[in-house]
């Protein structure tokens, strides 16, 4: 007993005391489960924030992007002067915000003389910066400046059509990266079923030159045509802007491989000694080790059954019996 207590004391002194924390609220538990990593992922949330200085156009751009992504976006209105996405130490604040708001896409706007109307679009993997694209916004036209029939306005949260035009998106590295990031940003929720009456918006991105992209948001008009497929008509409604690619940072290879992994891609564990044949089906191989015939115990030569043993025992019993008789007689 004494030794037992001593051992427990020793155990306690070497380990860090840990406590299990579980949520006492059903609401908190549901929130945590929503934020847990899932096998198949649905939409990504976007974090929209700004740096120390912003211009009028940039403010407009940020608010319109927030409008377009109303359901799955968080907008911070204060200025953050310690966020510098392209510097090694300037990402900690971003990662902290991403962790707290559970956002894996961010749009950071800032304005300076060297980089006017700057927009940094970035993605996160496990709440650490995965990749970044820096673009400058030119020729921005906000939603108010377009006149269109208000009845056709696309509804919030509808899944958009996305169109990319231009060979630049295939040939130029930066534009290829921008295409991927824009797809992630504009995509919205990943759904299995879609209601055909509810498709009403489209984004068109055209590569004008090797570093400029014209992005515009249009409403869709479905016109009657002879077949099941209606004729599409695009009407510009939403914001339109020119994006000039300035800098970009690609993810490093290892991180990219890990992020691109899907559940099905996981290397299937090879079951050994099983093969399948078209005719016979599944075939298994069984390996039997060599039998060591000489070492096996012979079945009939059990200890108590051996004849010599038996006879020796009988003899002993007889001798003892005769001895006793002699003693008794004496």
């Amino acid at each position: 007993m004494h030794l037992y207590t001593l051992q427990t004391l020793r155990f306690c002194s070497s380990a860090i005391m840990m406590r299990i924390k579980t949520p006492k609220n059903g609401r908190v538990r549901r929130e945590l489960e929503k934020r847990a990593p899932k096998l198949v992922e649905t939409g990504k949330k976007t974090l929209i924030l700004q740096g120390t200085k912003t211009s009028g156009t940039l403010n407009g751009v940020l608010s319109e992007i927030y409008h377009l992504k109303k359901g799955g976006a968080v907008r911070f209105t204060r200025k953050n002067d310690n966020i510098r996405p392209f510097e090694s130490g300037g990402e900690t604040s971003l990662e902290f915000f991403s962790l707290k708001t559970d956002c894996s896409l961010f749009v950071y706007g800032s304005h300076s003389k060297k980089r006017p109307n700057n927009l940094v679009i970035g993605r996160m993997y496990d709440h650490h910066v995965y990749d970044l694209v820096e673009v400058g916004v030119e020729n921005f036209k906000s939603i108010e400046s377009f006149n269109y029939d208000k009845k056709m306005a696309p509804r919030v949260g509808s899944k958009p059509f996305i169109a990319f035009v231009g060979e630049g998106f295939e040939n130029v590295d930066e534009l290829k990266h921008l295409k991927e990031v824009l797809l992630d940003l504009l995509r919205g929720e990943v759904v299995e079923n879609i209601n055909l009456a509810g498709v009403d918006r489209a984004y068109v991105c055209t590569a004008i030159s090797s570093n400029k992209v014209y992005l515009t948001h249009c409403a869709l008009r479905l016109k009657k045509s002879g077949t099941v497929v209606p004729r599409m008509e695009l009407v510009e409604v939403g914001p339109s802007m020119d994006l000039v690619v300035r800098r970009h940072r690609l993810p490093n290879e290892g991180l990219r491989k890990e992020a691109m992994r899907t559940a099905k891609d996981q290397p299937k564990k090879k079951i050994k000694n099983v093969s399948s044949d078209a005719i016979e089906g599944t075939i298994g191989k069984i390996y039997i080790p060599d039998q060591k015939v000489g070492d096996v115990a012979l079945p009939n030569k059990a200890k108590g059954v051996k004849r010599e043993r038996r006879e020796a025992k009988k003899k002993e019993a007889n001798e003892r019996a005769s001895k006793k008789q002699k003693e008794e007689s004496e």
Partner: protein
Amino acid sequence: MAMETESQKAFHVDVGNLLAFNPFHSFPSLPASRDELVKECLHEGTKLVQAVADSLFNLPSSEDVDGPLVKLPPPTTKLPREKHLPKPKPPTKWEEFAKKKGIQKRKKDKVVWDEQTGTWKRRFGYDRVNDDKDIPIIEAKMTDEPGVDPFAKRQDEKKKRVEKQEKNRLQNLKQAAKIGALPSHVQLAATALPITGTQAPPKKVTKDELGNVAGMAATSTASGGKFDRKLPGEKPAKKQGKHRKFLPVVEGSGIGSREKEQTESVLNKLISKHSHEILNVGKAVTMYNVKKEKKARNKRNQEGKFSSATNKLKPKKLLQKKTGKKGPVSSKKGKAK
């Protein structure tokens, strides 16, 4: 991938993402006006959107209240994940043991028949089947020690079992956390740092202690903690301001000039300590008189008592004391004597 049969150009269509990509278009020369550029972009966009719609509307649809519902195929463009793939939970120690032994899980009922009362009672919770407080009599066994309360013993055993269970649960969770497969609603928090020397847990600091320490720290600032930013709810420091008084820079030199007095007193103290010439005559005289009187007294006592040893000690003692206080004076005294 859908092919446009009209032209030789092919668009890359991804119906799962409602995406279409035309990699063959290029602007040989930028159109002069903005409007023309916009028009051309929209024209190209319309073509692509039409291509997607072609494949989309031809998918098998089911009728719904709001409109035709279509099941989208999985998207072909691969995009990176936002979080890592969830790792499967490792089997707990009991699960491993059960697998090894071939123990199957048995479905337990919520209510159990209670023989004592003759009713169906819960398996756990309020008013349960084998509750400790429902036992009226425990029969004594030969192995029982006298003086041990069996009811208390049962409660202790139950407590120990519960503690062991909690420890095992913590170990299982730690194992899962090591792999990275901790369940989403559980967090492991460290309560205390490893105890090294004594086994005493770290003491909690009281509010007053904290206040005192904060006040002490505040005085280390140049303004004595007066302008420190306070947390909401923090009370002002008790001893505010500086604890040192500096004399004014500009002051007249006269009788009341404090700076002169200050420097004078400092200098006097310094010089007096290391000087061998300064003698406080009054004090020296009184000391001499006192000593003389004591000696006379001792002589009278000596004649009466004959305690020479004590007499020898006593004056020496006085001497020691005096050397402690004022070095030069006593040396002078010795010389005078």
